[in-house]
C-alpha cells in the first residue's frame, strides 16, 4: 500500500481535565502516527490516560496542547468516521433491538434509506454471528453478544478507523479470547484500521501491528514497537513481551501512589 500521509497524526498532545479544585494532566506530550490498515494498540497501565486519549481522538473534549489530525484535517467533534466501541457493556440503546440499534445508527449517521439500512445491518449482524439474535433486546444478550452487536453497529457505518476502548475487558476470559480471535479475523477480512486501547500485554501482542507503550501519571510515550505477525516464533513473542513488561514495571515503580 502506498500511503504518503498518515490517516491519523497525533502531534504533541497534552490532555488535562478539571476535578473540583484541581487541574489534572492525564496525558503529556504524546505524538504518534497511524497509517491506514494499522491495528494500532495503545498499551499502558491503569491511569495512564489511554482512555482519555482515545476519547479525545473520538472528539469528546479538546486537547489543552497539540493537535489531532484525521487525513490532515483537525478533529473538532465526534463523528461516525471514527466509530467507537466502549468497554461498557451497556452501550447499545436498550429501547431498540440489536437490528434496531444498527439500523437507526445507519439511518441517523449515514443517512441511508430504511431498506438500504436494514440490508446493510442484516449483513453486518450476520458477519459478527448474531443473525439469530437480530430481533432481541440488548438486556437479553450476554456480555459477549452485546459487544458483538456494538461492533456490528460500528462496522456497519464503515468508519475510516475503528476506536476500541478495552472492548473485551468486562468479559470472562473464555469469551474474551474468542472475541479477540474473531476481531482479528474481521480486521483481516474487511481490511480495517483499528486504534485499540488495552492494559493487557498479551492482547496488545495478539492484535497489534504497532504498539505504543505509555507510562502512568501522566501518560507519556515510553516506547513504540512494530507488532509481530501471527507466524512469529514464540521466542520472539516472549522477548517482546518481556521488553514491554519491563518498561511498564519500571514506569510504575518510582511513583508510589
Amino acid at each position: 500500500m502506498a500511503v504518503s500521509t498518515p490517516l491519523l497524526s497525533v502531534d504533541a498532545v497534552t490532555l488535562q481535565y478539571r476535578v473540583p479544585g484541581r487541574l489534572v494532566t492525564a496525558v503529556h506530550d504524546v505524538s504518534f502516527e497511524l497509517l491506514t490498515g494499522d491495528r494500532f494498540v495503545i498499551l499502558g497501565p491503569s491511569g495512564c490516560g489511554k482512555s482519555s486519549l482515545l476519547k479525545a481522538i473520538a472528539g469528546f473534549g479538546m486537547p489543552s496542547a497539540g493537535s489531532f489530525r484525521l487525513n490532515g484535517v483537525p478533529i473538532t467533534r465526534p463523528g461516525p468516521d471514527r466509530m467507537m466501541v466502549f468497554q461498557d457493556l451497556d452501550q447499545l440503546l436498550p429501547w431498540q433491538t440489536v437490528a434496531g440499534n444498527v439500523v437507526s445508527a445507519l439511518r441517523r449517521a449515514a443517512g441511508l434509506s430504511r431498506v438500504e439500512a436494514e440490508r446493510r445491518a442484516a449483513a453486518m449482524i450476520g458477519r459478527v454471528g448474531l443473525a439469530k439474535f437480530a430481533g432481541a433486546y440488548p438486556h437479553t444478550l450476554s456480555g459477549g453478544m452485546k459487544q458483538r452487536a456494538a461492533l456490528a453497529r460500528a462496522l456497519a457505518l464503515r468508519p475510516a478507523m475503528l476506536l476500541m476502548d478495552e472492548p473485551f475487558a468486562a468479559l470472562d476470559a473464555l469469551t474474551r479470547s474468542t472475541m479477540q480471535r474473531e476481531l482479528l479475523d474481521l480486521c483481516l477480512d474487511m481490511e480495517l484500521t483499528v486504534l485499540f486501547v488495552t492494559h493487557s500485554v498479551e492482547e496488545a501482542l495478539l492484535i497489534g501491528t504497532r504498539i505504543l507503550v505509555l507510562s502512568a501519571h501522566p501518560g507519556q510515550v515510553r516506547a513504540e514497537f512494530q507488532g509481530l505477525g501471527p507466524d512469529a516464533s514464540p521466542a520472539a513473542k516472549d522477548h517482546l513481551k518481556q521488553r514491554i513488561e519491563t518498561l511498564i514495571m519500571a514506569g510504575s515503580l518510582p511513583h508510589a501512589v
Partner: protein
Amino acid sequence: MPYDRPEREIPAVRLAEIADLATPLGPVERLRTSLGFWRLVVLVVLALAWEGYGRWIDNDLLFPTLGETLYALWAATVSGVLPMRIFASLRLLITGYAIGLAAAALFTTLAMSSLVGRAALSTLTAMFNPLPAVALLPLALLWFGLGGPSLIFVIVHSVLWSVSLNAYAGFGAVNQTLRMVGWNLGIRGWRHVALILVPAAFPAILSGLKIGWAFAWRTLIAAELVFGVSSRSGGIGWFIYENRNQLDIASVFAGLLVVIAIGLLIEGLIFRLIERVTIQRWGVGV
C-alpha cells in the same frame, strides 16, 4: 491407601438425550401460584364480609350492605348523574395534568440548560414538595374564583414538582456511555435530547408521571370534597359530599368505589400497559 475415583468421560450424545428441560405446569398448580387468583379470593372474601356485616348491623345510615351500594351505583349510573360527575372530574384532571406536564417540561429544560435553572428547580421543589396541594386551594379560590380554574391550579401544582424533579434526576442519571454513543453517531443538540436522553431517562420520567398522577387524583377528590364548587359542574368528590348531606350513604359508598375503580384503572391498566411495552421490554428500571 487413597480412595479410588476413576477418571471418566461421557459421550455428548447421551447427555443430549435429556431434551425436556421445561415441563409446563398443570392448571391447578398454575392457579395456586398466581397472585391474580389470590387477589380475586381476597376481593370475594371482602365482599362477603361487607355484605354479612351490613346485614348484621342492619342500619343503612351507618353501613349499607354491598347489595345496596351496588344498587345505588347502578341507579346513579342509569340516571346519568354519576357519569356526568365522572366526566367533570376527569376533564379537570386531564386539563390540569397536561398543563402540569408542559410546565414540568419547561422547568426541566431550564434546569438542564443552566446552573441558575438548576438552582431554581431544586429550591422550588424543596419548598413546594412538602406542601400539600390542597392547602393552596383557599388562595386559588381567591385568585381564580369558585370553579374549574381553581381546581386546575391545584392539580398543576401537585403534578409539576414531582414530575420535574423525577425527570431532572432521570436526565442526570443517563449513562455517560450512551450520551457518547449518540454524539459518536453525529446526533447533537435537541435531537440528542429527543433521541437519546428522553428514552434513556424514560424509567425515571414514567415514575414521575405515576407519582404526579397519584398526587393529582387524590388532590382533585379532596378539593372537590372540601369545596363543592358549583353543583352543576361538580365532580365525584362533590357527588360524595352531596349524598352525605342527603344521608344517602349507599351512594356515598358508591362514590368511593368509583374513586377506587378509576384509580385502579389508570394505575393498574394504563400505566401497567405503558410499562409493559417500554421499560419492561427494554429490561431497564424496575
